[in-house]
């Protein structure tokens, strides 16, 4: 019987050991970052990682105090193949930065500690603890918790009298008392985390669980972004400052943002980061109205991917934006300055009174597309001097070639007639020149180095530096070529795209220093194109994605990233 019990006990403890260390993260956490070592080592095996110079340097630095030879990151004693966590927690009195990582070899880890610090290690019941000023490390055979802590000023300011009146603190300075109290509390906290939280763990938070992607190399989650910013502001300004920030604590969700979840992926041919931002119900309503529209289909007729080094697209409902703007401002700044809430409110109402949201919304619909087409060379003049045989100077005008951007801007507008009237007035005052079906903007040559043409067509106001392009637009000869970009633009409220490969190859070498050329060439060869896009509201969340496409010659994008990092470190 006893034997059976022993077997069960051993088995149970084995299960406990293998159990996810994530369960030790408390539920009342503010933010969590998880680094999925297993995923990373799958992409770049430890043996390959050790070969990088930057990795060698890092290991060297970490093991400087070690007596034994450390040749690989696996010799540091950490379990590289498992997940590691950072999390941020705070109470009314102390805030904690926590790191949680599994150990494979306790002795190897202890070897990293300097002889002087080793004297501080206290062993108790299979747990080792080392305290330093503002930090605590606790570990056993297979787990390390390291935390840094900071005391909250407000709390200790308010409670000074109470602490100092306690008998045990008699004769001590408040500075010392504070130090003793925080270190005691931090120790209790550290032990409770290390021993585990049971049911009160973060694993019972559905939003947290849902935010994480199994395939991500790293994930981050913030429970309430608005609140975190609030408290950051409060700690900067204090509660007794100019603004009564203490009142804000009850006004949570100041900025309308709730949770944020982000995941970082190293795919075969791309580095990708996705973000989900949750909004509160007020903001959700506003954002839904503002970002409900898709970019006008007409825009696609004037996009050619062979002619785009970079672009920015934007699709909003201008009328809704103007209507919602006052409320948005009140909710943002009314919270920061509660005593001015009424004034802000009234200001917003007045703004609405003066603006004809519908008319402005027709003049500018909220759709916008900016395309960087190319870099061109243009001859510009400048003043220099010539000297005669007696070195008497004479002013002369010289010319030189300068690189100028070629671009096209499209702005959605339903007021074609009005805009054409403006153009006619412009011609009268010689601001515009009437060409065959389009206009040339007569800007002073000194102020803009490129020509600019404009036309209003198909509910779009165009500005472009290329006469050929504007003529094609005017005469319905523009050849569209959308490729993957239609999908990219269509499904997002905003997109920022850049084709690094093409863009860099278009920059004349003469414009770059040798170092820059080397750097740019490396980027050009290792990163193809990249985009950032932000979706319309889905439920109460905004989804955004950043993606950098990499060549797949190196196997996966993490290898590309490490190689890039290696090259940059070397070139410094």
């Amino acid at each position: 019987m006893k034997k059976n019990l022993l077997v069960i006990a051993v088995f149970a403890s084995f299960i406990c050991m293998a159990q996810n260390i994530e369960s030790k993260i408390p539920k009342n956490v503010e933010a969590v970052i998880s680094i999925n070592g297993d995923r990373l080592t799958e992409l770049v095996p430890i043996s390959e990682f050790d070969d990088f110079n930057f990795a060698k340097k890092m290991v060297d630095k970490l093991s400087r105090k070690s007596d034994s030879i450390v040749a690989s990151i696996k010799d540091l004693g950490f379990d590289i193949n498992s997940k590691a966590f950072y999390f941020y927690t705070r109470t009314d009195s102390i805030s904690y930065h926590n790191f949680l990582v599994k150990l494979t070899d306790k002795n190897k880890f202890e070897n990293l500690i300097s002889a002087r610090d080793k004297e501080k290690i206290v062993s108790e019941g299979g747990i080792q603890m080392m305290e330093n000023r503002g930090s605590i490390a606790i570990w056993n055979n297979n787990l390390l918790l390291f935390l840094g802590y900071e005391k909250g000023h407000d709390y200790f300011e308010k409670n000074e009298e109470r602490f100092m009146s306690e008998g045990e603190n008699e004769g001590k300075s408040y500075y010392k008392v504070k130090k003793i109290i925080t270190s005691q509390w931090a120790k209790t906290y550290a032990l409770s985390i290390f021993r585990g939280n049971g049911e009160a763990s973060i694993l019972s938070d559905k939003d947290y669980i849902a935010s994480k992607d199994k395939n991500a190399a790293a994930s981050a989650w913030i429970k309430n972004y608005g609140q975190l910013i609030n408290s950051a502001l409060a700690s900067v300004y204090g509660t007794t400052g100019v603004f009564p920030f203490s009142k804000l604590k009850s006004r949570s969700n100041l900025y309308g943002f709730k949770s944020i979840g982000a995941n970082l992926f190293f795919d075969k041919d791309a580095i990708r980061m996705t973000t989900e931002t949750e909004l509160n119900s007020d903001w959700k309503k506003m954002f839904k109205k503002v970002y409900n529209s898709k970019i006008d289909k007409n825009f696609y007729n004037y996009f050619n991917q062979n002619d785009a080094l970079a672009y920015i697209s934007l699709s909003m409902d201008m009328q809704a934006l103007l209507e919602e703007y006052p409320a948005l401002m009140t909710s943002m700044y009314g919270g920061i300055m509660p005593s001015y809430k009424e004034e802000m409110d009234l200001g917003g109402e007045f703004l609405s009174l003066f603006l004809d949201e519908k008319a402005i919304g027709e003049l500018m619909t909220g759709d916008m597309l900016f395309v960087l087409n190319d870099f061109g060379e243009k001859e510009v003049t400048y003043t220099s001097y010539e000297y005669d045989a007696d070195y008497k100077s004479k002013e002369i005008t010289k010319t030189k070639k300068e690189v100028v951007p070629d671009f096209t801007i499209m702005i959605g507008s339903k007021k074609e007639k009005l805009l054409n009237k403006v153009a006619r007035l412009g011609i009268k005052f010689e601001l515009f020149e009437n060409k065959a079906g389009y206009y040339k903007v007569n800007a002073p040559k000194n102020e803009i180095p490129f020509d600019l043409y404009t036309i209003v067509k198909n509910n779009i106001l165009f500005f472009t530096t290329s006469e050929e392009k504007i003529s094609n637009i005017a005469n319905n000869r523009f050849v569209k070529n959308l490729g993957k970009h239609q999908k990219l633009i269509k499904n997002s409220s905003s997109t920022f795209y850049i084709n690094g490969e093409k863009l860099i190859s278009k920059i004349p070498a003469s414009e770059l220093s040798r170092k820059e050329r080397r750097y740019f060439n490396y980027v050009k060869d290792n990163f193809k194109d990249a985009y950032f896009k932000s979706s319309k509201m889905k439920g109460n969340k905004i989804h955004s994605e950043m993606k950098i496409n990499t060549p797949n010659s190196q196997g996966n994008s993490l290898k590309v990233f490490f190689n890039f990092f290696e090259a940059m470190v070397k070139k410094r």
Partner: protein
Amino acid sequence: MHNKGIKVLFLGLFILCTSCFEIIEEVSFNKDGSGHVTLTVNLSKSRTKLNSIMLLDSINNYKVPSKIEIKNKIAQVIQKIKQIEGISNVKNSSDFNDYIFTVSCNFTNVEALNTVISNFSSKKEASIIKQQQHFSFDTSQNTFTRNYHYDLSQEFKKTNMEDRKVFETATMTTIYRFESPIISSKNPTAKISGSKKAIMLRVNAQDIIKNKNTIKNQIKLQK
């Protein structure tokens, strides 16, 4: 977010273009050591870039001054120069179209000229300039000396890469005219004119920074 994106894109386009500028120092000396000086800063070659920079609040962490601020600063310097003993006929021009700025004046002796130069620098610099005598005229030896004290290569090391680029194509030209013919000059880059009464020295800022060349010179005149 979007505005920032556009700004970054535009900024990037212009910062890529390296800038150029030239500084010209022209001094005519009379026999008694008095004379006339014209200082010119010509940024015309970087006009396009400057036009774009003037639209920004700051660049590479430097605040971009407005036209008014520049004009005020120039006016201040001019005011100071006018008060220097031995200085007269102070004139200046600022051309914001071509970005060419000039200051000219008459001086009674090189001491006054040194004081003029020191006015373009900070107070601390100014006292060093006076001590170091950027310009000196030894009448007994009939020797004119152009000196300067800055250790540019040291100063240069303190700046970052972005800032260094600004000097890559900058030049400094000095032209000195005398009433007596020039016998010799110590700086081998300097060229003496056909009439022997003028000497010109053009140096790249890069060469000054790398200590390959200098605007220092010692010019010996015929008695």
